[in-house]
């Protein structure tokens, strides 16, 4: 037993879980996204602890780098709907809490009380054939490294690898198509005369945080 490793693991687990809880409970959605980055970094450190160094770097690059920035951009582009005073959760959030807790219990009971001993024995058996760090390892007896991952991507997982790249291309094109804004449908700021004309027809306009009128599609057609 190496107690330093245990302490580090518990620390990382605490960071990850506390950040995760903050993500789902914090009221401000931007704070929530920042806690999400903390949670991602905790998971990356956990990968490092489990000697999956390539995956840790990928986690930092893709999740802490790209995904969180995307989330922050989406929050900023849809900013004023998340103002103060709006409800954050559904009225029946306790149903969701119940579902999550029941699922946690249903997963955790067999994990701890039934299968734990078998897994530990299997893990010990799997570790016994590994060459210790620093020694010259015979092929197939060292913990898989980045070189092995690259080789398996180019050999047995070549087809899934290509399909994954195709999926990324499709997602890229799809995201552009979905989020593309046609110039004709762009919202514009109304002049005072147009605003007055709409008010006389009894059409109520939604207003944004600064109090500027944001015409709806119906209002634009009415003009």
């Amino acid at each position, binding site marked *: 037993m190496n107690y330093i490793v245990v302490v580090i693991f518990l620390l990382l687990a605490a960071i990850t879980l506390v950040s995760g809880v903050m993500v789902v409970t914090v009221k401000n959605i931007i704070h929530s996204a920042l806690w999400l980055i903390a949670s991602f970094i905790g998971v990356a450190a956990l990968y490092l602890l489990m000697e*999956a160094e390539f995956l840790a770097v990928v986690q930092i690059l893709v999740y802490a780098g790209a995904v969180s920035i995307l989330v922050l951009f989406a929050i900023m582009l849809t900013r004023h*709907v998340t103002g103060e005073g709006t409800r*954050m959760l559904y009225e029946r959030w306790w149903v969701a809490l119940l*579902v999550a807790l029941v699922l*946690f219990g249903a997963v955790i009971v067999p994990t701890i009380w039934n299968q734990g001993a078998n*897994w530990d024995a299997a893990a010990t058996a799997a570790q016994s054939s590994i060459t210790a760090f620093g020694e010259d390892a015979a092929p197939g007896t060292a913990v*898989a490294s980045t070189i092995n991952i690259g080789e398996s991507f180019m050999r047995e997982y070549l087809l899934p690898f290509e399909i*994954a790249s195709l999926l990324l291309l499709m997602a890229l094109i799809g995201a552009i198509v979905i989020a593309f804004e046609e110039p004709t449908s762009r919202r514009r700021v109304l002049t005072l005369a147009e605003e007055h004309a709409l008010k006389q027809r009894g059409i109520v306009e939604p207003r944004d945080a600064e109090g500027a009128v944001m015409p*709806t599609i119906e209002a634009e057609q009415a003009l």
Partner: protein
Amino acid sequence: MVGSVPIAWVLTLAAALFCIGLFGALSRRNTVGILMGIELMLNSVNINLVAFWRYLQPTGTVGLVFAIFTITVAAAEVAVGLAMVIAVYRARLTINADEVDTLRG
């Protein structure tokens, strides 16, 4: 790590993170918040994959490769999901999931 921390602890951590993400995805009104919950759930699955790889089959690469594919699909999913959030925001001026109810019976 392998000699000191039992695999059940890592799996417990992953299960807890999954349930936190599930709660977020089910209870948040903001669509971006729902997507963040889904990201947490995908992360916990990856923890599981890496733990099983490291503890039970450390000389193979299946667990790592599968985790990398999960990350790829999650990146694609979040890109399309956030594009849809922005499109919904343009059309409805809201991104609260309970207010986008055109298909409601």
